[in-house]
């Protein structure tokens, strides 16, 4: 149930399909809903259909069938109204190498019809906010990849959109810039109530940033929920342990095996998915102690979105690009 106000700042998608001429059904019947002020993470491997979905929701590509309302407006029938309420930073930061950062801001604000005085102040404010004030008068051709992405974000925010689309905003960024961008996006949602639709290939990103995550594969939404819900659905955390004496490795594997299924191993350590969940950790330690096995290292891994992806598609997200055969073998045992 969505109220009118929620809907007017949110996104509603119903059986959305896009089929390319002589191409694949890139998006094959997607339903989803994003509430106002929510950060929705759209997660999937290369070629899953993330960008195609974003293009349709931003009115840049007409859907083959299905419907979508963005900010309360229909993306097919009410393109101009949709565009007025959204901002987007697409996968390829489309910037003009011959223009400076400030000139880009000026252009973008002008395109959106902002008044002259506001154009200048809004531009400066945003350049400041994404940390480009010092480089504002340099040509974009000389910007680094991270600077370009930040400028692209600033441009997307020029007309104070209520809804923001970010297509793989942190691909190619270093950890510092990535964290800074996460903080900015989180702030936009929390303080300004901006709805964010963000695609990513990074689990950490969806996990850290999104209120809710949709996992897309081959044009289908295969799972949806909060990161915690999705992980809970898969359930079991993994414990990873390494013996102090290399000779104890065999025995350790045997002890751990009592608590659940093996889940791969590192060069020295052993990993097991705990059948009984986190609370079994104490029992594991006691059992190892009882056998007299000295522990070098012990770690509990919460279930990750990768586990979710694996559970839903039978493939690991890392390297699950479309070129891979659907029955790609997985090095870890599939959970029940």
């Amino acid at each position, binding site marked *: 149930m969505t109220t009118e106000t929620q809907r007017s700042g949110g996104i509603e998608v119903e059986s959305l399909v896009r089929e390319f001429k002589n191409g694949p059904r890139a998006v094959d019947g997607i339903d989803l809903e994003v509430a106002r002020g929510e950060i929705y993470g759209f997660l999937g491997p290369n070629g899953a259909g993330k960008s195609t979905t974003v*293009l349709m929701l931003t009115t840049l*590509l007409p859907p083959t069938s299905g419907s979508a309302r963005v900010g309360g407006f229909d993306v097919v029938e009410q393109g*101009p109204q949709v565009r007025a309420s959204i901002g987007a930073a697409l996968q390829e930061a*489309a910037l*003009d190498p*011959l223009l400076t950062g400030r000139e880009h801001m000026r252009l973008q604000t*002008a395109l*959106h*019809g902002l008044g002259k005085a506001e154009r200048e102040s809004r531009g400066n404010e945003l350049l400041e906010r994404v940390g480009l004030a010092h480089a504002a008068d340099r040509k974009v051709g000389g910007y680094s990849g991270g600077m370009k992405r930040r400028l692209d974000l600033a441009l997307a925010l020029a007309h104070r959109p209520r809804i923001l689309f970010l297509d793989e905003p942190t691909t190619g960024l270093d950890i510092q810039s990535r964290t800074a961008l996460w903080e900015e996006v989180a702030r936009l949602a929390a303080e300004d109530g901006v709805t964010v639709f963000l695609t990513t290939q990074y689990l950490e990103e969806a996990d850290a940033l999104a209120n809710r995550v949709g996992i897309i594969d081959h044009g289908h939404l295969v799972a949806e929920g909060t990161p915690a819900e999705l992980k809970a659905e898969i359930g079991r955390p993994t414990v990873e342990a390494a013996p102090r004496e290399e000779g104890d490795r065999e025995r350790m594997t045997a002890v751990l095996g009592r608590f659940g299924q093996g889940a791969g191993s590192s060069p020295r350590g052993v990993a097991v998915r705990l059948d009984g969940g986190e609370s079994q950790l104490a029992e594991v330690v006691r059992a190892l102690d009882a056998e007299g096995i000295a522990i070098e290292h012990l770690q509990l891994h919460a279930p990750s979105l990768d586990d979710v992806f694996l559970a839903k598609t039978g493939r690991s997200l890392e390297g699950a690009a479309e070129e891979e055969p659907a029955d790609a073998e997985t090095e870890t045992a599939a959970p029940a």
Partner: protein
Amino acid sequence: MSEQRTAGVRAVARGVAWRSIHNFLTNPAFLVPSLLFPLFFFVSFAGGLAAIGEVPGFDFPSGYTAFQFVFVLLQSAAFGGVFTGFAMARDFESGFGRRYMLAASHRSGIVLGYALAALFRAFVTWTVLSAVAVVAGMEIAGSGGEIVALYALAVLVNVAATMWAAGVALRVRSIQGGPLMQFPTFLVLFLAPVYVPLDLLSGWIHTIASINPVTALLEAGRGFISGDPVLAAAAFAIGLTLSLLFAAWARGGLRSAEAAG
């Protein structure tokens, strides 16, 4: 609503035109060729072919320089439009076009913006070209009004060529479309009475030139500069028709770009 729409189109057109003009003026790689090429055509045709003015039967009253000035003026008008089409294709290839498509509440403003830039470009070229022609001692027999009519004709040619090139650019969306914009324009311009009046042409070229609409544009333009207007109404009708026709073609291109994402 309609007033709001007009405002939206205007804002977008202004933004798009601003960037194109800015890039044109600040980048010598764009500015120099579009200034120099028409000048070379003019110098080479008017200077190198001056003797053609003495061919028996060549009876243009204002001299060969003025005769060729009209051709080069209309040619640079057309090529100003084609070069703008190049810029447009480049933008849609690099993804910058998407930025416009996304920001523009009314997308016809995008084409309008490029068209304004093309016109600006043509005006810069014409200023330089006209100055060179006057310095070179070109005879102008036409009245003030007739000269204005000559430039107005050039504006129509510029608009028509821009719309033609925009239609191609928006459909191909790659600089690979360049020859497709350029070659037909070149063809139609040169299959007209470029060097001598239509009467002095013979054979196949006379046949083609007689039905080529550019011939009427050229003859009208030459009529204006020599103060002896001919085919004026027909030329304006042709210019207007071509502009509207190609505007529809560009509009179709915009639809195609929208459908392709």
